[in-house]
């Protein structure tokens, strides 16, 4: 496969990230070339997309994701996103994006106060984002969650605005594992090029682990990265 066909995708590594390697393995299996980027790096290499992986950056001190947002690499990610670059935040990556103000809302400790680790069913609500372009509205995806602070919160005004703008893209179907408001599992920014979700698509790309539904999301990401790298630079 030529380099252009195997698009480079950055996977950020914070102190305390623990799904960076899994994300890299999954992206590689789906035809991308993952590049691990240390949080202290000020610049991103030339990549077509960025993944903020799961884990416990900075030990979740203060609030999950609150400290990681000040990493030098996050400034580069914000610039990349402002230019329309696709950015996917998984679990702790979702928390970091919310804390950084790149995604709306906040993630609170689970209603049950327990860490949850299980497969959940998700319902695709919108497909106007590269990450879900390969899905159909109403499609059910089975993808595992594993988190202690995944309870998405938005106040009434924000919730109405998100609904109106079509930014609620994934909901838990049947079982809500963390008590998130309106069963929200994933949201996008207004432009649709930044998505955060609590479930882990990178843990659902191999039949050996029970489900390959995560590939729907990650293939969308790989495709978006490929298109971005092939697009003529202005």
């Amino acid at each position: 496969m030529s380099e252009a066909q195997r698009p480079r995708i950055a996977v950020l590594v914070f102190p305390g990230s623990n799904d960076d390697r899994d994300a890299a393995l999954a992206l590689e299996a789906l035809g991308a070339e993952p590049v691990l980027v240390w949080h202290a790096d000020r610049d991103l290499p030339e990549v077509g997309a960025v993944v903020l992986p799961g884990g416990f950056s900075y030990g979740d001190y203060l609030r999950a994701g609150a400290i990681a947002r000040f990493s030098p690499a996050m400034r580069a990610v914000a610039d990349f996103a402002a230019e329309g670059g696709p950015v996917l935040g998984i679990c702790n990556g979702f928390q970091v994006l919310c804390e950084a103000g790149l995604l709306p809302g906040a993630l609170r400790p689970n209603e049950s106060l327990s860490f949850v680790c299980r497969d959940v069913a998700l319902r695709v609500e919108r497909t106007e984002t590269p990450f879900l372009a390969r899905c159909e509205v109403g499609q059910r995806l089975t993808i595992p969650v594993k988190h202690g602070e995944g309870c998405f919160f938005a106040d009434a005004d924000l919730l109405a605005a998100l609904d109106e703008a079509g930014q609620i893209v994934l909901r838990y179907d049947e079982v809500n594992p963390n008590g998130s408001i309106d069963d929200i599992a994933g949201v996008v920014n207004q432009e649709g090029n930044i998505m955060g979700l609590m479930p882990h698509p990178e843990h659902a790309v191999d039949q050996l682990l029970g489900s390959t539904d995560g590939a729907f999301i990650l293939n969308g990401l790989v495709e978006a990265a490929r298109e971005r790298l092939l697009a003529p630079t202005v």
Partner: protein
Amino acid sequence: MLVRPKPGILDPQGKAVENSLRHLGFTVDGARVGRLVDLEVEASDPEQARAEVERMCAELLANPLIESYEIELREDA
């Protein structure tokens, strides 16, 4: 500075504390768990110190969507 979960925001930690107190036989009508941050700052006057801590709260120490905060100043000679 004192950080609290905003009223109306689900506070599972407070709920767990409340339940534990009830199990011990105490009568409680509610418990909310916040966070206390002791800061030492140098400033020429209390207003300057307050303004500085306000900025710290806005930028890092509290998330305004889910938390409220109070600042209390104490002079240290």
